[in-house]
């Protein structure tokens, strides 16, 4: 069995930053990741990092923009922590050599982004994520931090007390993709989940094939509540054929959107008469789909994004990468023609419930980055706020797990005194099929067991599971189950959501769950068996899709990215609260926790969100 102080699961932006921080605080850290670190999807982020660096800007303004952008569903202490820490953490990247774009005076450049009151998006061309990822991996190499790459973490090793808040996490089990061995990793001080997004729950997404939400699903099954899962950001500018992202930087630099009548839609139809193309992402995504639905789209599918007027010099300087993407993946020359764009799944605002130190309600289990929900982004994330989240909360989780005192957290975790139970009118049974009889559980042993045996027990379970998957013959192929889920999610739980559609989605997910009971892996090899990996990932997709749809059906209002046909208003009296879903040993349970709008020195009063 491997043994370290801290195990970081995932090696994208949040994981790398957590590992560096924990190492700096003196811990023995190991990273376990199903991809080599430089393959992580942080590398695909384009736009930039919001940080109040300049005179005339302040963290307070950044926090105000963030809470407003979130449609008042962000917790103020989370948003304020992000905005306070981001300037120093961004400059830290500069000190590590990150090649930011530069102004003439040699300082790092910043540009305007949607929903921001100051041009505070710090960037490196239109490939900021690539540089952030590589810069931090370089620092991991410099520090000699152990990286187990191409090891797929199959589960967390957690004790099984009845109340999840009394459980503790002692490590993980992981499958060595190269050899087919399952091994245990004992973590003396903590496990930090940094597994990124869950875009593969949908079939049109900017996310990588690897973004299957593994950490979210593992934490969920271990008893950590999922928070605000229904809030999914659909990015307004993705290429129609592949979902490849066209950065908001294009609109930040002055790119315009028009419909098939040649009208500048954001202004012509009143979607955002002040900010136009630079309104918040949810606003622009709905505007585009409304245009298409009303017959003013191109090929009944997309609108056009035009940047030709910016001129070749400016495009080459600041948006060159966009030219390559449009050419390689849509066959369009952005210097000569407008680019077709449509909304695509891009980012999960919700995720694993944590506080501002990255702690979950399970002792020793942390989460940071897109898989986590602090919650900074609430109902809608602002462009340029994801990368600072990775570095700020990755760092904080790393420090805290390694024993640094970060003070008393203001955000609570787990079902508590302020929580209220919820009810859901689901057309089908939810959760693990047959869970009523077997009481399947994320936990593996009783609370007084020693840490090593907790990991041992989980290891036995996971080894048996791998054997079973490999030995079952002529079962259902995971690809069939996965695409059924992805299709119903894109059909029914997309930008526009209706009650009947959401119920259909729950039915389809139920059917897929039942099909998954008979899943098998046809590749019998132990060597680099991606068939097996994808089969295990599909289980995670099922659990996440269900929790997400539960939240979407429960939330009967229109807030941020969550739009409901039957409920066309934001209902602050009733819904200034987070949607929580707990796995509850296989019978998912819905509950709520109030949002915190009291900041350090002011309260964020909900206002009408117009751009």
């Amino acid at each position, binding site marked *: 069995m491997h043994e370290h102080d801290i195990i970081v699961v995932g090696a994208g932006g949040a994981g790398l930053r957590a590992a560096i921080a924990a190492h700096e605080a003196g811990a023995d850290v190991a990273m376990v990741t199903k*991809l*080599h670190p*430089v*393959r992580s*999807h942080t*590398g*695909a982020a384009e736009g930039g990092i919001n940080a109040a660096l300049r005179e005339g800007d302040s963290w307070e303004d950044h926090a105000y923009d963030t809470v407003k952008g979130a449609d008042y569903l962000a917790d103020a202490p989370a948003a304020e922590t992000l905005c306070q820490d981001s300037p*120093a953490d961004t*400059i*830290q990247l*500069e*000190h590590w*050599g990150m*090649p930011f*774009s*530069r102004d003439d005076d*040699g*300082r*790092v450049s910043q540009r305007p982004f949607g929903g921001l009151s100051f041009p505070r998006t710090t960037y490196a061309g239109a*490939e900021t994520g*690539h*540089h952030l990822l*590589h*810069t931090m991996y*370089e*620092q991991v*190499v410099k520090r000699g931090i152990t990286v187990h790459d191409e090891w797929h973490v199959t589960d967390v090793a957690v004790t099984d007390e009845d109340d999840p808040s009394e459980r503790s996490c002692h490590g993980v089990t992981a499958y060595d993709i*190269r050899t087919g061995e399952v091994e245990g990793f004992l973590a003396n001080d903590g496990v930090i989940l940094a597994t990124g997004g869950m875009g593969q729950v949908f079939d049109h997404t900017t996310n*990588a*094939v*690897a973004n299957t939400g593994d950490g979210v699903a593992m934490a969920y099954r271990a008893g950590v509540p999922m928070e605000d899962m229904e809030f999914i950001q659909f990015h307004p500018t993705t290429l129609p*054929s*592949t*979902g*490849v*992202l066209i950065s908001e930087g294009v609109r930040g630099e002055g790119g315009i959107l028009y419909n098939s009548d040649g009208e500048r839609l954001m202004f012509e139809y009143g979607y955002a008469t002040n900010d136009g193309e630079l309104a918040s992402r949810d606003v622009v995504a709905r505007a585009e789909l409304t245009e298409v*639905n*009303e*017959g*003013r789209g191109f*090929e*009944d599918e997309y609108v056009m994004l035009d940047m030709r007027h910016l001129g070749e010099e400016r495009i080459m300087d600041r948006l060159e990468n966009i030219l390559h*993407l449009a050419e*390689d*993946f*849509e*066959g369009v020359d952005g210097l000569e023609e407008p680019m077709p764009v449509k909304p695509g799944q891009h980012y999960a605002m919700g995720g694993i419930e944590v506080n501002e130190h990255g702690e979950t309600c399970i002792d020793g289990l942390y989460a940071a980055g897109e898989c986590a929900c602090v919650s900074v982004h609430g109902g809608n994330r602002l462009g340029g706020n994801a990368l600072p989240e990775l570095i700020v909360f990755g760092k904080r989780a790393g420090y805290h797990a390694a024993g640094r005192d970060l003070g008393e957290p203001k955000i609570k975790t787990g079902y508590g005194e302020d929580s209220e139970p919820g009810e859901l009118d689901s057309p089908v049974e939810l959760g693990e099929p047959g869970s009523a009889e077997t009481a399947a559980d994320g936990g593996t042993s009783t609370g007084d067991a020693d840490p090593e045996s907790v990991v041992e027990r989980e290891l036995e379970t996971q080894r048996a599971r791998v054997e079973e998957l490999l030995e079952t013959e002529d079962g259902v192929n995971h*690809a069939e189950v996965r*695409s059924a889920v992805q299709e119903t999610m894109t059909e029914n739980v997309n930008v526009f959501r209706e009650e009947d559609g959401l119920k259909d989605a729950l039915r389809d997910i139920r059917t897929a769950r039942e099909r998954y009971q008979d899943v098998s*892996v*046809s*590749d*019998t*090899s*132990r*060597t*680099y*068996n*991606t*068939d097996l990996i994808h089969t295990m990932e599909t289980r995670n997709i099922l659990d996440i899709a269900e929790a997400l749809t539960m939240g979407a059906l429960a939330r009967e209002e229109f807030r941020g990215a969550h739009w409901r046909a039957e409920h066309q208003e934001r209902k602050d009296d009733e819904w200034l609260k987070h949607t929580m879903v707990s796995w509850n040993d296989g019978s998912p349970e819905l509950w709520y926790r109030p949002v915190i709008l009291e900041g350090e020195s002011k309260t964020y009063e909900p206002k009408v969100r117009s751009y």
Partner: protein
Amino acid sequence: MSTQTPDESETESESEGFSPGEKRRQVRDEAREAREEAEAAEESTPEGDTVPLKVFRYDPEIPEKQEPRFDEFRVPREPGMTVLDALMYARDHFDSSLTFRHSCRQAVCGSDALFINGSQRLGCQTQIQDLDNEPVRIEPLPHQDVVKDLVVDMEHFYEQMETVEPYFDPDETPEDELEEQFQTPENREHVKMSTRCIWCGACMSSCNIAAGDNKYLGPAAINKAYRFYMDEREGEQKQEERMEVIAENHGVWRCQTQFSCTNVCPKDIPLTEHIQELKREAVKDNLKFW
């Protein structure tokens, strides 16, 4: 084959009371249905419109795959289809044991460098319609050990990257946590192309020298060294250390300027030029002592 379009008067009477958008959609849907029917009719012919792939297969522990072989797959041709799309289709519909690395699908993760029709390319960045020959021949990267099917062992590549100390290491950094180091836009531009490397390994696989000399740093690692050596924020002390690594026996001088690395780089990094520039720096560095 039916290419019948809906009768206009019929469409009008049917769509009374619909918005213009709904009308347009209806017309389009019908046209699309007709098109799809036509396509389905075509597909049912023996040839169909499919792309033939010849894919390298090998698995060290499956008896029938221990001897490397090529399998042929025919996948439905779609406009804009990439080699990666075709491989994924073949895997998801015909043989789920078909194994290859891939993740981002947009040429930034560097997972899917393959040997396609005889040259190193990213599967996701290669459009089938841009290839000259069919069947499309897909093999793992040459000069690396094959783990299984199209997956190669990248360890040697990673080791060479690490040899050049691939991290920024200035003599000193500002004490104030909010104080940035300055860099001129010109210097940033100078290193820009070198910072685009995605560690895909295409260059190393294409290099004859690297194939014959396992110790040769190779184009990607030298480019990484270049990225820091040329960055004005790093100090002279570190520059000297870097020059030692760059100019040693298996460093820049092994390059014979064949440009194969530059030709295959999916990010258009002028690798050979960078190596040449470092050779000039090495010469200058040598002259300093005279």
